[in-house]
């Protein structure tokens, strides 16, 4: 285990353009600070989040991945958020098999108005991953798309 106090987790956040990314902007508008550990990647829809993106993030050094979507019934593209939610659930089973704790892969809903909710999700996620420590395993995502595991050196 690492020294918990100095460890700053790296987290990749996939945010849908219409609700969650707007929610993150809303949090910005309120100018309340939150931990800077989440690197946001904007996608048009949470349905675009290919599970490979999540594995890629772990393999590139992320300690956690966050997927934020429109609330059920609010998806700009009707139902992309449901697909994202289903894929997340399936992926969690794979991650658990690989020894990656489910706290490192979180899925939630943030609307364009929920700046405060965005901040609390980020804060809780950073705290949770910080408590877990660095991800000591690494996923090798090779060119043909098969994923393998190695201990991170």
């Amino acid at each position, binding site marked *: 285990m690492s020294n918990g106090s100095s460890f700053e987790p790296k987290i990749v956040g996939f945010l849908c353009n219409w609700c969650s990314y707007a929610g993150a902007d809303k949090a*910005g508008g309120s*100018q309340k600070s939150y931990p800077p550990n989440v690197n946001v*990647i*904007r*996608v048009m829809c949470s*349905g675009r989040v*290919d599970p490979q993106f999540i594995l890629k993030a772990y393999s*590139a050094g992320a300690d956690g991945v966050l997927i934020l979507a429109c609330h059920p019934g609010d998806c700009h593209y009707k139902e992309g958020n449901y697909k994202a939610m289903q*894929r997340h659930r399936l992926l969690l089973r794979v991650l658990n098999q690989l020894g990656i704790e489910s706290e490192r892969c979180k899925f939630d809903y943030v609307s364009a108005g929920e700046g405060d909710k965005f901040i609390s999700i980020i804060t809780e996620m950073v705290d949770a991953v910080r408590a877990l420590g660095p991800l000591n395993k690494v996923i090798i995502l090779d060119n043909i798309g098969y994923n393998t595991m190695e201990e991170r050196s």
Partner: protein
Amino acid sequence: MKIGVYFCNCGSNISDKVDSVQVYQALEGLTDVAYFKINDLMCSEDGKQFLNDDIAAEKPDRIVIAACSPREHENTFMRVLTGAGMNPYLMQMVNIREQVAWVTDGVDKASAKAAQFIKGAIKRVGFHKPLEKKSIEMSPDVLIIGAGPAGLKAAITIAETGRKVTLVEKSPVIGGQPVLYEEVFPNLECAPCMLEPLLNEILHGEHAENIEILTLSEVVELTGFYGNFIAKIKKTPRYADLNQCIGCGECIGVCPVDIKNEFNNGLDVRHAISLSFAGALPNVPFIDMTACLRAKGEDCKLCERSCPLGEGIILYDDAEETVERRMGAVIVAVGASLYDAGLIPKLGAGTVPDVYTSFEFERLLSSTGPTGGQLVTSSGKTPESIALIHCVGSLDSNHKEYCSGVCCQSAFKYNLMVEHKLNDAHIYHLYKELVYPGKEEFFLYKRAKENINSAFTRYLNIGSLEITAAEDGRILIKNTLSEKGAIKADMVVLCPALAPSKDTDKLNEVLGTTADTYGFFEELHGRLDCAKSKVRGIYIAGACQSPMNIAQAMTQGMAAAGYVLSGLAEGKQLEIEPITASVDAQRCSGCRVCMLLCPYKAISLDAETRKSSVNEVLCQGCGTCAAACPSGALSSNHFTNEAIFAEIEGVLA
């Protein structure tokens, strides 16, 4: 590759928190970064001019703009790029204001976070491809299904601009539900007088030649997509020449066949050849061939012989035909029907004499109805008391959970109309809830309350009401939950919820549109886009989208017309956004996972090659298909796997 990075101070919004020097130092060693330039306020006129001139001078292959949220100024900078002769998709914006400067404590932390974001963008932008908006030809013509208030208003609004409208109506008459009413709420305006000018404009007005009316017709197939639909319309024969007949009605009286008159809800009879009701438009009779003696093999020609115009007006050989029309957009305005009161059998609809639904009662009140507007019971008596049951099937999880918002107004209208017809009649309102929103609606309620012969009684559950025929010939209304006395009335009017018309499911299947939880046509967005369906180019208007009154239906008809007129402007080509999915046919195995996922039916399987193909007009670019394709054949333009993988690597580097 030459990548230019532009850093916007945003006045001091960004520079107060993010140190551009620290960011610049963090980017050192990134080989593709050719330059790093700082501007104080890039969205200002000066800032845009700087960007424009700098791009022209530097000629970068890609640029990264670290500034505010792309939700604010991505389009602004894309236009600058276009102006400077650079493809606008070769830019990536980085949000270092809302998501960094404003929310991070400490300059070092904020600068480090901004640098990570920018690294992601630099990595990503190398994979951006120049994308072009495509445009295709489209038809400015419009198909409107349903000739009620919403459909008619849309038709005339569009026709007035010189565009062609095909108006398909399944019944022989135009005007929809209110054309059957005597008076309409909230101010008891005469319904035929209100509608006739509109109907006449549609039939004979200045722009009538732009409107093709197909009565007794239905749309049986719709193919194509926004801008280029093709509809197949089945026309049931009318057996009378719509263009030549003068509507004198000579043929009707001579017909020897009497059948139940469905236009008066079966309350009286009509002939096999008839008009729907006196004054129905188009003023041309139709023959109900299932009832006509000729269908039974008899050579009856009484109607033809009575025609003062001679032969050729009545067309016994008229046959069903299917016609094809091409159009750019479709407006669905098929209206609603009443919730089937028979599903609450204790209310006596159809079993207890003198129990009517609101639609039936409208015909009883109408001067063109079965009694000429006289209120009489089935035994010929003038009713001394009438009970109006509100909320039949509404606000009830066993039936329809919503409030239709119009039935109370109808009931208050009945109160006043009954008061006018029968001075001293007692009127009972049995209701679950009373609603009267709007600037005029309270008036009718107030009038009903002020009538000393009116009584309002609240019930808890429609299931506890029992309506039976009493021995004295009157009707007994009991609330089984209450021990207090029952009510006796001579006539009962049930005011059921408005419910989706029975053709809704079939029509959804034909059009590829969807139904909402309640079975109504589903809108794109309940507040922002309630006149759009979820299929591009198919609009919805009137009570087929949600229960509504005439004013709302007319307004929504105009809203749908507005969408058509602005989106499908004549002479304009249809612009297609380039951020769509695309298929690499080499890799596609034809498994159809993408097809089943697409919420817009934008993906189809090519019949010959057995590969998926994306319709760029229908695709909205969500990328859900690309995330699911097991062979990596589907790609999401501008959000390709390569670009996102690179961005992930960049932000974590």
